[in-house]
């Protein structure tokens, strides 16, 4: 699973992108965030308040309850401000 971080989530996590292999219990976006938070360090800071984190799975906006699986590209970022 490929993870991407943007804007201040990237800065707080201290990483642009990474490859991870979460355990099989990690089935949803929410599970993935909890698993990443448990790793501590920058990830714990970046995901301190999951309500302000936005997610895209395979380049489509996703909800916390959406599924994630091996091979997915999952991106984390603050609310977008295009235009």
């Amino acid at each position, binding site marked *: 699973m490929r993870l991407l971080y*943007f*804007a201040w989530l990237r800065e707080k996590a201290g990483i642009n992108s990474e490859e991870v292999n979460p355990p099989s219990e990690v089935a949803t976006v929410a599970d993935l965030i909890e698993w990443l938070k448990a790793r501590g360090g920058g990830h714990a800071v970046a995901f301190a308040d999951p309500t302000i984190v936005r997610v*895209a799975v395979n380049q489509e906006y996703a909800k916390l309850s959406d599924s994630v699986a091996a091979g997915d590209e999952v*991106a984390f970022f603050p609310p977008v401000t295009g*235009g």
Partner: protein
Amino acid sequence: MIRVQEQDFEFGTELAAMTEGNHGIGGVCSFVGLVRDIASGETVSSMTLEHYPEMTEKALADIEAEARGRWPLEDALIIHRYGRLEPGDNIVLVATASAHREAAIEACHFLIDWLKTKAPFWKLEETPDGGKWVDARDIDDATAARWVEDKSAFGGESDAAD
């Protein structure tokens, strides 16, 4: 048409290209967003736009397709820049062409509202206090949400599925 690019654009050229040879167009509405030199009372010396390249073009194409489904457009154009910009620089151009002025204006308004809340860009403003990420504003969500419920005269009669 959508374009995501670091370089500037010249909107006179872009709009002329839209209307060139299409005499069915009765109105062209456009919006250009520019970098301001002040934000929340602080001086802004530069704005850096970060985006999610693998997703951006798809997100913009979806937004354009949504507008074309809702209004009878002859043409639609979104050009969004990324990278480091300075006050006065162009950020984004949205333009819509239609036989009818209301369709062009409403579609243009819709596009810029949806870009604010659906295009994966983030803005870092350089101020005397350092770099600050621009917060998404609740008002932008509210403004964009209007297009979900308050269908326009044209949108309400459209065949397009929402």
